[in-house]
């Protein structure tokens, strides 16, 4: 009985948390494994961290996502691509851009546009 009431309290607390964020709407399970994606984006924009550190964090997150059986959100893999580009790892960059396209076909036109620029840098320059 005691265990039951504990889970009950925990459930109530998480519901309270969700309500704080979402107002009156009830919140189901998240669709994605987020890890540190958004904090890492902020660090990237504020130039607070070197690409290598961000890559280490986000690739560890990929492992955790796999282990939990959930998918990383839109943009996660492409962001890893751009970090690898900054770290001068063109092969890794291509790998992650392709991975974003495979996971999220909505990105196909954009990723293809970027890949055309990579393959023909002279033509791609403005």
């Amino acid at each position, binding site marked *: 009985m005691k265990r039951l009431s504990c889970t009950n309290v925990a459930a109530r607390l998480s519901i309270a948390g969700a309500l704080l964020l979402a*107002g009156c709407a009830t919140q189901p399970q998240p669709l994605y494994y987020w890890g540190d994606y958004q904090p890492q984006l902020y660090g990237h924009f504020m130039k607070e961290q070197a690409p290598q550190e961000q890559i280490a964090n986000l690739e560890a997150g990929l492992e955790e996502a796999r282990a939990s059986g959930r998918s990383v959100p839109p943009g996660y893999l492409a962001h890893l691509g751009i970090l690898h580009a900054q770290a001068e790892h063109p092969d890794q960059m291509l790998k992650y851009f392709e991975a974003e396209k495979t996971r999220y076909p909505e*990105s196909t036109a954009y990723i293809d546009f*970027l890949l055309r620029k990579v393959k023909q840098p002279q033509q791609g320059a403005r």
Partner: protein
Amino acid sequence: MRLDILNARSVKGACAALLAAALTTGCATTKSPYDYTHFKQSRPASILVLPPLNGSPDINASYSMLSQVTLPLAESGYYVFPVSLVDETFHQNGLHNPAEMHDVKLQKLREIFGADAALYITVKEYGTSYTVITSESRVTAEARLIDLRTEQVLWNGTATASSAEGRNSSGGLVGLLVQAVVSQIIESSTNRSHPIAGITSYRLLGAGMPNGMLYGPRSPKYQTDGNARP
């Protein structure tokens, strides 16, 4: 001159009365339901979020907000274009500030990104204000969703969040002063507005809010919302 002053006073009085009314009604106000006709005709699956315009004095506001828009939109069922890559693409093409990016023709955005819709955000307020008694971090933003195929406005909305929400002021004067010190320490030590911007973003862009965004195709709640009330 005298008349001007009197006018100013009466305007102030009217504003104060309106404010008081707004405060007392609070969450209980029922807005007229949003017209989702265009949204439902368009049913965008992918959203390109442009780096937000900044109407606040804090230079970090745009990118603080941009780094936190993916979660509410993606969890609502949309594909959100990688915000860092999109920003980089604009820079590579010689556009270095959000105002220039917002001026790019819709057709051009569609060509490059292949997005169904573009989201234009303006940060109206972003920052911490300090008074004797307390300090408050507040972030307000508005957004406009535009279909890149038909160029129609599908939705617009606004949201605000404040660190002062739900703060209990019934602890007497001593309690207030203690709280002021504590919150000044907290709010000056880090960028306190950044987490507040996260809440603003959630309220602005999460589906299921009153008059908010509708759920997208990747959500189990897709096409279950946005019906006109009987």
